């Protein structure tokens, strides 16, 4: 089973989590642990450009992180979602609930 990697890095005020690989029911816990660690505590960006597939498990993790951030008054952006992750987000019918930027350079200061 192909796994995912979730690598944290710093960019300005943001902690950027770069995700590579498929997010599904076998792999989502890795992403969940990292987002739970940062969401709501710092301004967070989740780079989904390297995501090869995303099921509802991944959507749930990102939604929970967004809600944690909102509750704590912190920011969370989805960065450059790959085609499959963009489709997964849009399939919810609420794409606007996922603040998205095209690249880490576009993260607001």
């Amino acid at each position: 089973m192909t796994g995912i990697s979730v690598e944290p890095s710093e960019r300005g005020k943001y902690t950027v989590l770069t995700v590579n690989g498929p997010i599904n029911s076998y792999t989502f816990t890795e992403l969940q642990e990292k987002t739970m660690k940062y969401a709501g505590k710092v301004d967070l960006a989740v780079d989904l450009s390297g995501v090869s597939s995303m099921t509802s498990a991944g959507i749930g993790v990102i939604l929970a992180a967004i809600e944690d951030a909102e509750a704590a008054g912190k920011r969370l952006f989805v960065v450059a979602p790959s085609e499959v992750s963009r489709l997964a987000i849009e399939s919810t019918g609420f794409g606007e609930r996922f603040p998205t930027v095209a690249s880490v350079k576009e993260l607001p200061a």
Partner: protein
Amino acid sequence: MGLTIFTYLSAAIMLFVAFRVRSTGRRRDVTVFRLAAIASAGYASCLATGYLLAADDAGTALILLRWAGAGAIWSFMAFLRLSFTFPYGRRLVLVDLLFLAAAGLVAWQFTAGDAYLAEVRRVALEFIRFEGPSYSLFAMAGALVGILAAVILVIRGFMIKSRVYRQQAFLIAAGIVGSVAFGYVVSIYLPQAGQNVAYPIGGASRIVAILASSYALSSTRLFHVPTVAKTILSRVLLIALFGAPLGLLVGVMLLFRLSMLFIVLAAGFAGFILIGRAADRFAQSRFGSARDEESREELEAAIAHIDLSAGRESVLGELSGILAQEFGAQWFWMLSEDDAGGLSRVFPGNDEVVVANADSPIIEPLASLDRGVVLKTDIVADPAFALHKTALLQFFETLGAEALILAKEGRRIIGVFALGPKRSGVDYSVLDYESFQAIHGKLFVVAYYVRHVARESLLATVEKEIGLADQIVRAVQETIDPIRHPAVDVAFVCQSTRQLGGDLYDSVRLSEHRWFFVVGDVSGKGLNAAMSMVILKSMIRTLLREEKDFIKLVARTNAFIKEQLPRGTFFAGAFGFIALDKGSVYFINCGIPAVFFHSPGLETVIEVQGDGKMLGFVKNIEPYLKTRKLALPPGSSLVISTDGIVESENVRGERYGKERLVRIIAESKGTSAEDTIKAILKSATSFSDGKIEDDVTVVAINYHGRKEKRA
């Protein structure tokens, strides 16, 4: 003219409120109150019309004003009769006959001669009233009847044990005193001060008593005095801040000689709407209940943050602390449904103590309640509880409780939260009731947790007994009213990647030919998703019982997911009603990716789910919801699938996709629903090399039509 309109308006309002009061359970009190309101409205109408005709038809005006006087006395006589037996409204035949005779005597004395009123005229804007020799005596007697009624109500109020009835008695008494004072000012004081133009408004004086009584007879909970004070203060300020500009507007119109009645009324109405909206916004922002709401949100958040994995004792101990701090209750109990169907106390204490057996006379009254929060005062004073009043009061007495919060799954009571009297000795008020309502959903989750999960520590369940948890969840998943009907063949599968999952299928029989169904997937994996699924399933069943509007049912389910389930939880699926007598399916797509329809008249399988929004993303989803209707011709079939099938992938990263699913459905034409499901699962499993990586829920419905009935 303006004052006369006000009096007519007050008559209409008095009649309106009189008939809005529910008479269930207190028929006599409400009947007597309605008589008072009818007499008061008659008094107002006769008085206003009488003064209106005074200039042109003095004879008719005199007759009407005499009857108005009689009506004024009758209304207070009705209040006096109410006071005699308040709040239990007993029948007293002799007393009622005496009242009837007295009413006749009053009518005769007021209308048969000049004793009360000899003549009335209008000269320019002045009303000139020639009072009869007994006018003062009659007016005094009328006021005394009202004051006597108020005094008796106050005395009875002090004697009544029920605090809510006491509150009602005092409120009605205050209303009567207000009416007497109002009447004195406009009918005696102002005319003596040379303002006899105010005569017509005297007919509106009873509105104070009628409004107070209507409110009192409808109130079943104790007022929260600071809230009432704040409301009154805010209203006074609103009138001062916003009523003044409206008055100025009308004044300016009159100044510019726009005195035509229609124009004044239209402008006044428009001003009322515009300024009323501004006033409402201002009130909401400045002295509204924002602080109360904030406090409720904090309370909700505190309950939501209770760590359910800490075990039952700890969860209920923490909840007890939160409720004690917020409401100041002397004690807190939790009763949970036991395996025998009764109610056992699970907190405080480690041992479960049976409080009510399954056949206890309290179970049925609790099951039949259509509300989740009940105060003891509700049972005493609210006619809605009349049927089970004795049993419910006895239950409150047995527990010693003052407030109960019920968690129900359909008619089953899965948990009861009981709160004792407040430490301060103050009673639970309307404000407390609203707070209880606000946290009801959160308490439901706790009750469900205690009933279904917490008999063992959650952590222990996960680590050691996942098989048992799986069995529990499977049992809940399989508890459905299967769609069994000669016109249809239905099959479904819920399959998780792990032992536990959030896949959900449920159907509930609504009538002989109609079923409700829901298909979908609760986000998350493992035990968390499974817990969310079983809680959601229960909540949907509960809402189905309460909510008749399909869209509102889904909207309330969405609100429950958003506000009560853990963050990040959402639901992708479809809600539907199937009417087998009509051959129709109504459904709302809430993010279901695949609903395929195969009609015998069509060669192809068509996709019919349309666009949909998943539940749990926004607070109010109602504007996004659309109901779709699908006519099912005999021989047609419907397949509903969550994303697990279409998004399953093979080792090369290719998706199974909708095209493959369509092909399998088309190939399954003529087979049973069960075989269609098997074929879909076999195809998807084979495609993904034996391992589908997501939860799968698929439902197949083959509609045969109603040929059997005609045969």
